[in-house]
């Protein structure tokens, strides 16, 4: 079976990595391996405890950007499929934020495709995080230059 298009979802609800793995591999026997990345809400920012994090996004452009990154990864690493789920809304420390799941005939493509996807997602998908600290103050998270450098190591999309 050939590669299928990337599965992209933006949702407030939590996700189940086991269910998503089963869905990605359903009804096929050609997949040799899957790789996954799950991003979580850290309980502190700059050493200060946070009480929650709010994820805002640009409906429409988000799905387009994630679809483009998914297609680029699928083509470049010859993935057999990939799933990207990103949550939005109010999340608590320990909550899952993002899932990247890749399937390929061999491990290296699955692992590389997964790393490529999360690196590009962090610099190209229109999401913004706002942290609410335990003392009630709020602050938008600054973009990290290091993330741009990490994404650039893959070359252009």
């Amino acid at each position, binding site marked *: 079976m050939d590669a299928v298009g990337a599965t992209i979802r933006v949702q407030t609800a939590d996700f189940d990595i086991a269910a998503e793995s089963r869905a990605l591999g359903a009804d096929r026997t050609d997949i040799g391996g899957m790789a996954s990345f799950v*991003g979580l809400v850290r309980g502190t920012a700059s050493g200060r405890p946070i009480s929650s994090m709010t*994820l*805002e*996004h*640009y409906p*429409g*452009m988000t799905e*387009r950007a994630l679809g483009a990154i998914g297609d680029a990864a699928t083509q470049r690493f010859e993935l057999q499929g990939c799933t990207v789920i*990103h949550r939005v809304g109010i999340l608590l420390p320990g909550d899952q*934020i*993002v899932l990247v799941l890749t399937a390929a005939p061999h491990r290296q493509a699955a692992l590389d495709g997964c790393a490529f996807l*999360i690196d590009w*997602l*962090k*610099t*190209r*998908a*229109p*999401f*913004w*995080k*706002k942290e609410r600290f335990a003392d009630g103050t709020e602050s*938008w*998270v*600054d*973009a*990290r230059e290091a*993330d741009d450098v990490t994404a650039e190591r893959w070359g252009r999309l």
Partner: protein
Amino acid sequence: MRILYFAWLRERVGLGEEQVDLPAGIADVAGLIAWLRTRGPGFEAAFAQGRLVRCAVNQDFAGPDAAIAPGDEVAFFPPVTGG
């Protein structure tokens, strides 16, 4: 033209979305920003020079030289921080 603002730009400007009639002579993103800055202190603060503002035209990332036209959807936002 539909203009969208996200994250701290939305808070600074005081609205998430608006419909504007593009003044004659504005043909690119830089021109639009220069005009928006004249529309009040919130806009001035949001687009003050040196601020890191990103733009998308019709949901694709666009630089200051990108052409714009009536009917386009233009969005302004800070560098993204998802993942």
